[in-house]
């Protein structure tokens, strides 16, 4: 007991030292004279309580762990091991995917406008998460400046519309292309760097892009951003009450139905869904292609790959470029949905959120990332009163995930065959 008492006491005191000065005291400035103000008794009580809790937890840690272990966990239900071959698994997966896609297609017609709008945002994050997953999850290159490519995509559409009047459908592939070119230009020199250096360089690159957007005022509008970016049209049918361009017909007039602003929201949602499905489809194909396998091989063991004659620069560069192009698509869609963009939307925090989605979902796992994107976007909306604590929880979650489950909630499963008896 005694040998545990002092470490526990120190842990308790440390908790107090960490919490008290910042939580318990605040500066009151009255003109030029400064003063300190203590927090209310409730906060002070919480600080004391937290310190005591840490103290007692450390003191009785071994007992608590023993008790926690003695609670019987429900046994994992084993799926009958031999009975499921790869083809059966594939069939189930296909059925499952079909049902989910069908539900996602039908759902907006019954849901409220706000929910459909939120779902569109979720889909943007899904697309970004899947794109970053190529770079971080599959190729193992930690990219902390992914938001730069998102910004390039968004600004491509906004600027091309503003200066050349190009429509969304022309700009969408162009935005992907520009983001890919940026990825290529950045990737070409920096991919020689080792993992953590690469992370910092991409972070610096992301900041450079944001500062440029902020200060190149006569091109990008600086901090004021770019406004009145048009929404996409459906084969020339617009979703406004009246057509903005000469010769275009609004959607409701063409089908001679009543005008409803909800159509626009549903259309945007369906468009995002389409983009996400396209992303999933392309990435699934890529993963089975030689280049996709090379990404994973390179992540696992770079030296072995090089000795087997794989060109690491080309492989890394392809992952970087393809990942960037998806961010470009997402960016173009984002600016079309918002109608307004400014450098504010493309800060480092955005990169960190996308990274958190990939980490939480399980690096490399597509289903995991989709679920994580849903959780990360929907949970803060549900718990609006905790909005203030959102980023705090975020940071905490990233740390805890790395400690307890670095492979993510739904780790990637490899396709594999199993031998059956008989």
């Amino acid at each position, binding site marked *: 007991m005694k040998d545990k008492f002092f470490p526990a006491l120190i842990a308790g005191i*440390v908790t107090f*030292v*960490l919490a008290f*000065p*910042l*939580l318990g*005291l*605040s*500066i*009151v*400035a009255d003109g*030029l*004279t*400064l*003063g*300190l103000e203590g927090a209310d008794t409730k906060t002070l009580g919480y600080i004391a309580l937290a310190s005591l809790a840490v103290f007692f937890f450390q003191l009785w840690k071994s007992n608590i762990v023993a008790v926690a272990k003695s609670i019987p966990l429900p046994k994992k239900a084993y799926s009958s091991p031999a009975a499921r071959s790869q083809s059966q698994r594939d069939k189930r997966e296909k059925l499952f995917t079909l049902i989910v896609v069908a539900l996602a297609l039908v759902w907006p017609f019954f849901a409220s406008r706000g929910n459909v709008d939120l779902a569109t945002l979720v889909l943007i994050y899904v697309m970004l998460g899947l794109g970053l997953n190529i770079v971080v999850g599959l190729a*193992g290159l*930690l990219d*902390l400046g992914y938001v730069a490519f998102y910004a390039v995509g968004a600004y491509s559409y906004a600027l091309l519309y503003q200066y050349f009047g190009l429509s969304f459908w022309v700009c969408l592939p162009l935005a992907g292309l520009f983001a890919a070119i940026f990825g290529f230009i950045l990737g070409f*020199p*920096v991919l*020689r*760097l080792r*993992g*953590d*250096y690469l*992370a*910092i*360089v991409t*972070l*610096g*690159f992301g*900041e*450079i892009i944001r*500062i*440029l957007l*902020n*200060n190149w005022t006569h091109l990008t509008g600086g901090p004021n951003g770019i406004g009145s970016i048009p929404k996409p049209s459906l084969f020339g049918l617009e979703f406004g009450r009246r057509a903005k361009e000469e010769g275009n017909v609004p959607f409701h007039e063409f089908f001679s139905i009543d005008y409803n602003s909800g159509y626009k929201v549903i259309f945007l949602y369906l468009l995002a869904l389409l983009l996400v499905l396209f992303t999933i489809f392309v990435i699934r194909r890529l993963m089975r292609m030689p280049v996709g396998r090379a990404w994973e091989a390179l992540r696992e063991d770079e*030296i072995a790959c090089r000795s087997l004659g794989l060109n690491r620069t080309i492989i890394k560069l392809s992952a970087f470029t393809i990942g960037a192009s998806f961010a470009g698509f997402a960016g173009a869609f984002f600016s079309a949905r918002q109608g307004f963009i400014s450098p504010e939307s493309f800060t*480092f*925090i955005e990169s*960190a959120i996308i*990274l*958190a989605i990939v*980490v939480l979902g399980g690096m490399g796992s597509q289903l995991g990332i989709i679920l994580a994107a849903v959780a990360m976007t929907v949970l803060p909306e549900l718990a609006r009163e905790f909005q*203030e*604590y959102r*980023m*705090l929880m*975020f*940071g*905490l*979650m*990233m*740390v805890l*995930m*790395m*400690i307890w489950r*670095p492979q993510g909630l739904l780790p990637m499963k490899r396709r594999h065959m199993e031998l059956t008896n008989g």
Partner: protein
Amino acid sequence: MLETALYFIQQLLNGLTIGSTYALIAIGYTMVYGIIGMINFAHGEIYMIGTYISFIAISGLIPLLGIEYLPLILIITLAVSMFISSTYGWAIERIAYRPVRGGNRLIALISAIGMSIFLQNYVRIAQGSRDIAMPSLIQGGWSFGPPEGFQASLSYMQLFIFIATFITMGGLTLFIARSRMGRACRAVSEDMKMAGLLGINTNRIISLTFVIGAALAAVAGLLLGLYYGVTNPYIGFIAGLKAFTAAVLGGIGSIPGAMLGGLLLGVTESMTSAYFSSEYKDVVSFGLLILILLFRPTGLLGKPEVEKI
């Protein structure tokens, strides 16, 4: 002619002021990297917490204890701020880095990013997200140059920054070079496994590096806090990135390198703002970081890292 020279000297002085504080923060990065090979992404937040603790200590000392004697205020504030920031450094290592040590480097880095976001928002919630201002305690200075026309000036605050940085760095260099613990630090950064076999408590040495790094960041927090007279929860990110650039510039893992890198970066920045554009000074520093990593990843004073298979 004289005017141009004076202007240049003024920029040099300003750059060295900022640069010496970058150097203080950079030492924290470089020591941790030298020993466990990870980028302590949350280090910039320790600096930010250092500014807050200093401000709180100063505004507590003057009215509550009625201390008016300036050197005493500064010394007590420095001691309090170093102690609390070191506790943060120590706790961060214990909570977020030790459990993931020995694994993949990226896992430790992601954990550090999470910690950085956590600390930033913790301070934002605890102290509010608005700027906190501090009236300047050290006023006055010297001016050089013709009375009519441009005058270069060296304020007492800048002088204080130079002296404090010089003493801190001298102390650290002596500690690393002469003391028993310093020798253990060098041994662990050379070969951790071997040092452990020879009876050095490596965990304790790793904790010590985090504590020293955090204490130096707290010194920088007090100095820069007083120099700018303002702080907010978001200053840690950019300052951390700059200090990391300084550490890489000088050669990561090398303490003299961090000092040199910090000064060089500070001067580069102030020259950029003076002769080119102050909006793009961050672009220049990050561009510099990218260029060094590309062409000389070992920095100015670093040793090349040999990858063992």
